């Protein structure tokens, strides 16, 4: 089997003296959607932050054949990893159009950037209409979509999606997952998604990992996990 696009092995992370990850190992293959499930405080967000370098981490993290465990967030982003953080990370003082332009900041291929902007706006037409509006004035769901659209502007090899459903209406969440699924099918977008809403996450993802107190407790195909009794009781609620 070819080397997966992303591979974590024994990754630990800490916030000051507090250890949040105790040796997480997982892989994401090119073109896959992989979900990370778990209760609050299980280390889901920290796992994404360890990959993008926004938390102190150790262990092995390989992305596209390169070790990235000691690289800065900006360096990881420049390798093609788009991290959409919890709370969306929209630059609220800047306009919608400026947010989109910054998504492509590390790129130099101007013509392709314009082309990508057209394609991205086809998925999110309202963003085109509100190009000059300050991002902070968008609704929560619109900001989440802007964050996703901005991530796509990087032409990312991997999108790290943190809790896209956070604080949003079910209809909006469904729409966001529909677009992510479509991008994955059509363009082969690779996504590592962290989600409280396990039902949605398992629907979108082909595989998933279940984290418990900073360790991988379970892993497997989405269908297998859906049938797993403890997953059903703890995360699916039936």
């Amino acid at each position: 089997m070819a080397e997966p696009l992303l591979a974590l092995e024994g990754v630990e992370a800490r916030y000051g003296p507090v250890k949040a990850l105790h040796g997480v190992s997982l892989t994401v293959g090119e073109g896959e959607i992989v979900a990370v499930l778990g209760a609050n405080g299980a280390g889901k967000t920290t796992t994404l932050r360890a990959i993008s370098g926004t938390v102190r981490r150790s262990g092995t993290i390989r992305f596209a054949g390169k070790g990235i465990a000691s690289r800065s967030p900006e360096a990881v982003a420049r390798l093609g990893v788009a991290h959409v953080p919890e709370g969306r990370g929209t630059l609220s003082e800047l306009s919608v159009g400026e947010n989109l332009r910054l998504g492509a900041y590390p790129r130099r291929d101007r013509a392709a950037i314009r082309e990508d902007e057209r394609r991205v706006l086809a998925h999110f037409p309202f963003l085109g209409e509100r190009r000059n509006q300050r991002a902070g004035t968008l609704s929560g769901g619109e900001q989440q979509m802007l964050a996703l659209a901005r991530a796509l502007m990087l032409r990312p090899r991997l999108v790290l999606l943190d809790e896209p459903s956070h604080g949003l209406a079910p209809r909006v969440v469904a729409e966001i997952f529909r677009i992510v699924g479509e991008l994955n099918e059509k363009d082969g977008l690779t996504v590592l998604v962290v989600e409280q809403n396990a039902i949605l996450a398992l629907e979108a993802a082909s595989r998933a990992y279940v984290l418990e107190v900073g360790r991988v407790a379970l892993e497997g195909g989405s269908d297998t996990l859906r049938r797993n009794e403890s997953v059903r009781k703890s995360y699916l609620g039936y």
Partner: protein
Amino acid sequence: MILAFDWTQLAQQTVIGLSNGGLWALLALALVLIYRSTGVVNFAQGEMAMFSTFVAWSLIHHGLSYWEAFFLTLVISFAGGVALERVAIRPVERAPVLTVVIVTLGLFFLVDGAARWFWSSETRTLPNAFSTRPINVAGVAFSIQDLGNIAVSLGVVALLFVLFQFTKLGLALRAAAVNPEESRLLGIRVSWMLALGWGLAAAMGAVSGMLTAPALASFDQNLMQPVLLYAFAGAVLGGIASPLGAVVGTLLLGVFVNLIGTYVNWIGTDLRLPVALAVILGVLLVRPAGLFGRASVRRV
């Protein structure tokens, strides 16, 4: 009374006020730039500008023309600003605001002391940037120097506006200042953006200093201390976080201070600085966000 009013004098004094205000605006913009990215008022900004002016003086002393020295000093100041950020501010980037304030206060004394050590404390003069000849506009004589100062100030402001609004670098500078964490996730080298901001601020201060000095009969190492206070007062008036506010605030203050000094006898030239400080106090009491400050709108 009304008939005897001297409109010529009003026009002349207004232009002088704008000329002073324009030079304060450059330093105020430097303050705002640092304030937005580092979150503190850089108390050393005036001394950095003074240091730059002394560099220009030395260059002219070694035979360069005023404008040659002017542009060379800009480059040196920019590099110096970047270096200061790397050496003095970078280590406290994540420290509490108060720590950073103390560091800029330390820089104030460091830069001031360095200027006194390199250059003796005797007074010196800088040649005029513009002709001292008056020019006649619609029957009123203005000094070319004042008009030149206004033109250069507005030119620098316009350049800065273009940089920040219409270039990719400017966009990254703004993003890095407002949302550093998120900006890093987008691949922006935030730490370098801060250094670049310090470089730009130092260069703007240098322009302010190099145009302030020639208008004085002579200057020494205290050159920029009143300018820093006026700049700060103007920036507070306009809203310390707003670049537009800083420019409008300092221009208004420049005109106000000059007119009140002209028409209110007991204020004259001696009490202008206290007037500026009264403006700071008044603004902070009545409208703390300043004329152009806005409470940030955010939906969650």
